[in-house]
């Protein structure tokens, strides 16, 4: 179930990678900061989802969009390492902001409507909370809409063309600059939705969570192969499964290390990722 969160994050980051040409290391931090802002909005509006949800999305879009002008020159010069350092630094700034300005650095909790109203379905001995169901359905819906956009609309196809072969895209007169900016917006949109679903799934947000999410997202991307969108779906779910299995066998803090260790090990065996890199 957290697997679907990893999927959304990795797909969004892979998408931005193939269209705009760089890895958004700070995507996880953006998602979590959006969660924090949503929490703030929910607090101020008395738990109104109508205020909280759109705010999360708008915040995520703004935070991602801000990276476009910042990275533009670096992307034009193909300065991959500098882009990397920039987004890592950006992520660190966001984490610091979260630990200093919200709730005195304590984690924030989501309750009520944001967690599916505490409802659950019971199948005999198995009880699944409504929140979990919303998350999985939400993720499926988003993926479906995103794929339809990419494969059925003119703009989506243009973006895929830009991702595939920028030179040809220019020759065809496709609006390359506009498509690139739009890809940032879409990635931000995905981040916003991820924030909402994550809040629903986890029930809380904390400052270090951003870094952890970014990190796992990167692990999934490397695992699947950089830029491979479909691969990210499979590997994101796989990581989610591996994590739930290891939580059973290992105590707390080791879980993260173990699941990441497995992923790192795979990367070292197959440096291009399970499905082959596309970037």
């Amino acid at each position, binding site marked *: 179930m957290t697997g679907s969160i990893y999927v959304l994050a990795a797909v969004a980051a892979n998408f931005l990678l193939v269209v705009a040409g760089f890895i958004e290391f700070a995507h996880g931090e953006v998602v979590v900061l959006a969660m924090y802002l949503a929490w703030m909005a929910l607090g101020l509006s008395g738990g109104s989802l109508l205020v909280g949800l759109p705010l999360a999305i708008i915040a995520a879009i703004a935070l991602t969009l801000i990276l476009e002008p910042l990275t533009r020159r670096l992307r034009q010069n193909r300065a991959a390492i500098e882009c990397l350092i920039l987004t890592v630094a950006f992520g660190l700034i966001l984490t610091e902001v979260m630990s200093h300005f919200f709730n005195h650095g304590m984690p924030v909790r989501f309750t009520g409507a944001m967690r599916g109203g505490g409802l659950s379905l019971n199948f005999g001995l198995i009880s699944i909370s409504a929140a979990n169901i919303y998350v999985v359905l939400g993720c499926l819906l988003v993926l479906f809409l995103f794929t339809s956009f990419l494969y059925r609309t*003119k703009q989506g*196809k*243009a973006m*895929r*063309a830009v991702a*595939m*072969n920028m*030179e*040809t895209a*220019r*020759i*065809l*007169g*496709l*609006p*390359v600059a506009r498509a690139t900016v739009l890809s940032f917006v879409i990635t931000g949109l995905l981040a916003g939705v991820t924030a909402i679903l994550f809040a629903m799934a986890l029930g809380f947000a904390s400052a270090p969570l951003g870094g952890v999410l970014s990190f796992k997202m990167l692990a999934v991307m490397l695992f699947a192969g950089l830029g491979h969108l479909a691969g990210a779906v499979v590997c994101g779910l796989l990581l989610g499964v591996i994590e739930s299995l290891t939580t059973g066998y290992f105590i707390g803090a080791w879980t993260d290390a173990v699941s990441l260790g497995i992923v790192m090990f795979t990367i070292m065996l197959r440096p291009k990722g399970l499905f082959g890199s596309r970037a």
Partner: protein
Amino acid sequence: MAGNETPLLAVDQVHVFYGRIEALKGVSLEVDRGEFVTLIGANGSGKSTTLKAILGLQPASRGSISFLGREITRTAVESIVTRGIALVPEGRGSLAGMNVAENLELGAYHRRDDTGPDLEKVFQRFPVLAQKQHQLAGSLSGGEQQMLAIARAMMAAPKLLMMDEPSLGLAPIVVGNLFKTITGLRDEGFTILLAEQNAAKALQSADRGYVFETGRIALEGRVEDLRSDPNVRRAYLGGQA
């Protein structure tokens, strides 16, 4: 050349620099509506650069380019394509990960009218593409990809169709078919500007030609005259009849 009508495309004393290297040293040429003009010359002599400068891919640092009577020298590529210039790039530039139909669709990206009839025409002219509609462009042969590239350019309903070295990498038989297709297009009314290394074929099919040498135009004229010019024959046509 009919001098009383403004040329469709006029390139005037254009210079292009790649960094500090001057690739085009004051190139001037003209293309009239309905003409088939070819640019021939050795590798690196500036033919491709000229086409790229016209499309706006390589900015011209000096000189001017006008199309349909309007300046396009410092215009963005997107805008130039919308005005009606299409380029079939060197190396075909197929969008390998998309299928044939999608490639063709993107060729018509800027058009707002119904592209159905043009698609029909394209499929009639290139039945192979109709058959392999749903196949990935990357899996087509060299000759088929060249057809796709031309068809894609046609889908833009361009007023000027430019082609950059289409015969490169193709087997001789395929090249023959290629030139038949190109002359067919000219007969249909397309205005064509072709950069070609295969001077023999180019001078057989086109109306007029420009001979490029190290970034300059060394010679120009009707292809019959160029074909019989001794220098041209020696340098580009194997020195024989």
